[in-house]
């Protein structure tokens, strides 16, 4: 996530259309935004656990232990153990990586492909615009979860394919946002100026338009990360996504639901992990939106 944002921010610093201090300003605004900072902290924790989780986890997350079956939270198993006696804390730590991957890759696909399509559509206009945007409408006219399930069925199960499926589902959102940004920016003076200096379409699109359409896309990226985490959980509910015995939060929550009355901890902690992460991304998105451009508020 942080990577995506950092990478996409880079060209802006090279370009000079916005005042030099714009991104520093944004950062300062964000640091002052309480909710936004809470988001930064929560997302930060996710990233740390996602990266270091496998080294921090007290147990092998897939190791079956008949003696620890349904063990409630205790000193040995801080968050309890599941129906196979596997340590829930360790599984959550490993699951953090899955969530991080699902989020980053799914949203990465959606943001890259979607923004690109939106940019091209908005910039080219006419027939190409019509074709691309109607294709996006087609994708958008499916119930998202059905589309994801159908794509997943076509690609075969597995976490990698789940990421692709979720990614495809979110492409139209990015395309629409990118396109509408382009439509407003296209007519600005500095674009005219660049064109009169003989800049190619590609150069105008990627060096002039894209950086200026970035703000809403970044906000959408953070918000989509939250949705991607929830989408993984929904796919797990239908038994798709990560393959057993590997842990993902959605899978743990979905499996744990059958035991809620006997061993509530099995579903409770992965549920909390999902909730805190989703909230983290949403807080961060809110913070970024307020920090970057107040006029963006309420566009979603």
């Amino acid at each position, binding site marked *: 996530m942080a990577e995506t944002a950092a990478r996409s921010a880079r060209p802006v610093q090279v370009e000079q259309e916005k005042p030099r201090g714009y991104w520093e300003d944004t950062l300062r605004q964000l640091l002052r935004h309480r909710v936004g900072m809470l988001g930064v902290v929560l997302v930060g924790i996710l990233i740390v656990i996602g990266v270091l989780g496998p080294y921090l986890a007290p147990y092998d997350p897939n190791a079956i232990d008949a003696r620890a079956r349904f063990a409630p939270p205790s000193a040995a198993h801080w968050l309890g153990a599941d129906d196979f006696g596997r340590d829930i804390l360790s599984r959550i730590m490993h699951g953090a990586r899955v969530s991080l991957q699902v989020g980053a890759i799914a949203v990465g696909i959606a943001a890259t492909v979607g923004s690109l399509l939106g940019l091209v559509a908005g910039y080219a206009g006419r027939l190409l615009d019509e074709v691309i945007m109607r294709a996006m409408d087609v994708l958008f006219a499916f119930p998202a979860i059905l589309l994801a399930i159908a794509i997943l069925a076509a690609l075969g199960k597995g976490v990698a394919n789940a990421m692709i499926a979720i990614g495809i589902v979110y492409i139209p959102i990015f395309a629409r946002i990118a396109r509408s940004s382009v439509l407003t920016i296209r007519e600005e003076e500095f674009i005219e100026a660049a064109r009169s200096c003989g800049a190619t379409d590609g150069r105008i699109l990627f060096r002039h338009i894209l950086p200026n359409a970035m703000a809403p896309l970044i906000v959408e990226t953070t918000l989509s990360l939250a949705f991607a985490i929830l989408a993984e959980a929904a796919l797990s509910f239908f038994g798709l996504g990560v393959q057993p015995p590997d842990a993902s939060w959605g899978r743990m929550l979905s499996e744990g639901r059958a035991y809620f009355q006997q*061993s509530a901890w099995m579903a409770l902690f992965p549920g909390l992990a999902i909730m805190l992460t989703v909230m983290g991304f949403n807080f961060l998105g809110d913070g970024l939106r307020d920090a970057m451009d107040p006029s963006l508020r309420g566009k979603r």
Partner: protein
Amino acid sequence: MKRLSVLLLVLLVLALGACSPAEPTQEPVESGEQELEQEEEAAEEPAAEEEPAAEEEAAEEPVVEGEPVSGGTLNVAFQNEWSGLDPHTVSSYSSYQILNNVLEGLTFYDDELNLQPWLAESWEQSEDGLTWTFQLREGVMFSNGREMTAEDVKFSYERLIDPATGAGNAGRVGPPETQIEVIDDYTVAITHPEPFGIFPQSIGFDKSTGIVARESLEEDGTISVPIGTGPFQITEVQGTTRLVLERNENYWQDGLPYLDSIIIEPIPDDTVRETALRSGDVDWILAIAPQNFQALQDDPNVVVETAPQLSYDYIGINTTREPFDDVRVRQAIAYAIDREQLCEFGYYGLCDPLQGPVGMGSPWFFEYAPYERDVERARELLAEAGYPDGFEMELLPTVEYGETVRAAQALQQQLAEVGITSTINAPEWTQWLELEGNFMYDAYICNWNGLIDADQYYYLQHHTGLVFNFTGYSNEDFDALVEEGRSISDFDQRYEIYEQANQILVDEAPYVYMYNKREIRAWAPHVHGFTVRPDQANNFWTVWVEE
């Protein structure tokens, strides 16, 4: 403003109420601990704990029950949605479990699994063993009021064995060349190209051999709602979300069925289905999750009963693929697994470990059990086969049957201990069938259900090239034995034959058997007269409800 704040307050309270169950409330956790202890006890000696309980209830009930009352409606929740109702093309249990109450065969296995005359009153085999002649019961009416005759038997059987129908169960009646001849209205003769000694048994197993009225056929040659002679008729089908059975007023058994109607709806989620029963929304549920067995048994508003299934859960090994074409590799897997643990993790101990296909409850049980867990022996066999360091393989359970996915996870760890590294691929049913049906797997995990006669345990699954032989197993001696076994009728003679066949099969291990599960059904205390059958049939005509 004030009104707004009040409204907001109310809404917030509502929202709080809605969100709070996600937090750990005190109550469920406490009861969870209790149940955990009980579950552990149950886990240690599953059979000892349940059986007396079940018998106790059975012994008590008749006293409490009193006389059956006619009338009323039973609300029934299935687990899975049915896949069609044409008895000649479906194979899913959820479809058969509906058809159990709609169609009847010439013969029928009663609750004790004894073969009874049903639509036929008697039958005899010709001298040469090729022809079976059935004397039909007179005055049996289809639910549409027309009398069933030999013509209907001919129609049903011929449609089943017609290769164009594509029926998976055609073999129950015989090969496509089988001749079905109407002698008079109440006499029908079936002639097979080879002697078929267990034909009366074969047509009593499931409803693919039920007698269907020709009027069920639609213009395009399909059957969406079959008309039968059974105690109930299908009067309403809403896709696969709701199906209504109403009593067949023309039913031939006097006084039966008791119920006026049965409403069947599928509820896939275990928690929701069980809650529906506990809160009184439905009267009877088809399946409960094994992990909740204890909790439901402790609930005074729920009656839970079990019966050992006539089934086996097994690992099917692809004998057409390296390294599984080597019998030593398959045996190594059979030695590597800990069946007790698989049963515990896969089905919460509501099962018995199994080394051959047939469970102890069946008259066809054989005491041949060479594979006690032996990690050393498994390693030796792997080394002999040329895999001293093991190999990598994929396990193929299906999410359709949760226990196969759970067993696979325990299996993974057990195989790792002998050096076999395995990954799990658990697709949904449709995809699983495709992979399994086309030899696109290393080892799949599944189960066979509703097996009554020995023939069903051995013939179609393992005879060279036959329809259900998905492992590619082939052995001439075995083939000869199971062919002979189905051509004769005498039990003792057949027992000897199948004992030999069983030994060959277990030794060569195209299937590695894991466990024999118990069938679980649960219903509300006001429901009476239901018997949990080992073959998983749900027969509702003796069921009645208290006011």
